[in-house]
């Protein structure tokens, strides 16, 4: 288990679409999904839209829970006066991140784990607009309890590394898309996390900047041995001119068709 930084086993997720207290359809996103990433690997998760790539990343990053949630009442199909509660989101499975079973993480422990182990990079940067670049980058360290001085020092070092030190005291609204994404990457790195989870980091960027960002990730993976899991549509950018894959591997997710529910008896046995 320890050689794997991320180990997903038998992960299931199903979305139950409920309309007017009737179960209309079920969409199986994952069926017994197994996925593992070794330390220092760089894996790209690819697949069509709606196949669950971001969902997988959110689950690994502990932003989304594995089990059932969002319970709603529906009528039992044969006995309309009787109601039962079913989850709109069904799920189960096991996910281990850096040896930790994330199902066991709750409250402050979960927050601490996310802060210290995971760096998340989003498609749309998600920087806090009122804070400057250096303040945004320093945020995870300050959340971790480090002093403002130490956090700012680390943030500045990262900005220098990314050749962005002149933007330190600028707010995100005057930075370009690529610069914002670099700030977001620096923010994700400031706490020296074991894992970087990037959800379509180049999705909102100009093609000119996409390659830069991908190269940055590759450099980080090689130099700092950070385990990276990246969701991307842009598979071509992962290959070099010699058509060789620049990262460790690709993990394809297949599509998940919606299956309508017709005449199916909805009862407790299905959902417990």
């Amino acid at each position, binding site marked *: 288990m320890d050689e794997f930084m991320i180990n997903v086993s038998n992960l299931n997720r199903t979305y139950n679409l409920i309309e007017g207290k009737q179960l209309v359809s079920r969409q199986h996103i994952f069926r017994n999904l197994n996925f593992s990433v070794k330390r220092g690997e760089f894996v790209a998760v690819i697949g069509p839209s709606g196949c669950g790539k971001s969902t997988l990343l959110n689950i690994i990053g502990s*932003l989304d829970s594995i089990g059932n949630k969002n319970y709603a009442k529906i009528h039992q199909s044969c006995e309309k006066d009787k109601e039962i509660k079913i989850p709109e989101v069904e799920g189960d499975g096991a996910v281990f991140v850096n040896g930790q079973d994330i199902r066991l993480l709750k409250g402050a422990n979960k*927050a*601490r784990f996310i*802060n210290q182990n995971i760096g*998340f990079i989003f498609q749309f940067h998600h920087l*806090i607009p009122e*804070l400057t670049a250096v303040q945004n980058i320093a*945020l995870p360290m300050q*959340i971790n309890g480090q002093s403002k001085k130490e956090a700012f020092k680390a943030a500045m070092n990262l900005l220098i590394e990314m050749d962005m030190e002149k933007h330190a005291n600028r707010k995100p609204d005057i930075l370009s898309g690529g610069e914002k994404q670099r700030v977001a990457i620096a923010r994700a790195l400031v706490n020296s996390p074991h894992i970087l989870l990037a959800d379509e980091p180049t999705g909102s960027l100009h093609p000119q900047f996409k390659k830069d960002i991908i190269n940055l990730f590759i450099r980080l993976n090689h130099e700092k041995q950070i385990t990276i899991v990246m969701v991307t549509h842009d598979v071509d950018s992962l290959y070099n001119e010699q058509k060789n894959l620049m990262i460790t591997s690709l993990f394809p997710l297949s599509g998940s068709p919606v299956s309508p529910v017709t005449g199916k008896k909805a009862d407790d046995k299905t959902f417990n």
Partner: protein
Amino acid sequence: MLELTLSKYLVKRIYTFLLTLGAIIGVACLIIILSLFYNYYLSSEKVFMGIHPHIEIHKDMTDQESLKVIQYVQQQIPEIENIQPALYLQARAEISEVNRTKAFCVQHDGNMLCHSRVDNVNELHTRYGFHIIKKQTIDIMVKGICLGNNVPVMDFQKLINGGTNLNRIEQYEDTNQNPLPWGFYLEQGLFSTLSGYFLIHFKGIEDRKKQYWLNGVLDMGTKKGKYPLMIMSLKSARHSLKKKDFVNTIEIRIKQPYNADKVSQKIRNLLNNKDFLIENWINKETASFTFLTIIKWMIFAIVFSISIVAAISIFSTLYLTVLENRKKISILKALGMKDSSIYIIFLLKTLNIGLISTVFGCLLGYYGSYGFIYFFKESLEKLGLENPQPHISMNDISIVAVCTIGLFLLTAIIPARNAVKIDPIEGLNQ
């Protein structure tokens, strides 16, 4: 502190400013009310201590008996500053305000009286006529008192409008040994004059009117007893009420008026006799003090509604802030911020508003009291506040601060809870 930094960006500055301003006004109003009420308290205390000795011992006694008690108690209790015998009696009297004029007196009608003065050496008859201006027949409380070193036990000098030469009530002759009308003080409001000649006839005790001199009136403010108060010397009272060699009260003044309860208990233990009834000014006016306290806190509660309005504004602003900042809160959660830190951000915001409003509200309230008193001085004096001054105690500030800050902190709880419950994925996809 990170939470403090983030709390600054929680609400737009203009809203923070307006909310704080509303809170400052609320605190200032509370401080003004408490400051003015303190004056009312002081005025009332002044009246209470003016019309009651600090401690009274009641028992029907002769002069000698009272002297024995006085000597005994004074020896045993060093806290006593002044102790004198007195006579307290309720009587019905016909009191007439008169103009005195020299006259050859033949009584033609019931409204003309004559006063004869006879010199000891010669028979000298001077007749005075009394033209009655106003007459009233009322029940009054007569207090016949002694002045110890020209100072009464009751501190009623502060209540006097008119002659403050208290010795006049114990002057029975002038320098030529001619008899003087006996001096007395009467509660203000019965007659319009502050001094002058009066004729008093104690019904059922005497069969004729006697001449007295009103030395001054007693301004009781809003504190009026069951019967109007008349103060004269013990000798005058005994003579007028036909109570020769009779004392029914011993008046005591102590150095620390607020220790009256303790000293009363000491006296009770000393005298150890059920015939003695021992009262102190605090007991007598407990109901009044309680009433004042209740009124004070009722007014406080009413004025506190301004702060409640400010708190409701803060609550609704924070509630909307959570909705507007779902994305930011989700970002913080995605970066690993704890739920408790998110709570702290909201609490710090309201604490900040509470602290600033308390400090500036107290300052505004204190100086506002000056302004209030300056513009409404006459009206306040009519309410019984004599020479009002702004006054704030640390106790008042503490109560206002605790109530205001506590209220504001409460307003942060629900919005903070809503912020903590935000699903980061939903928030980020907003």
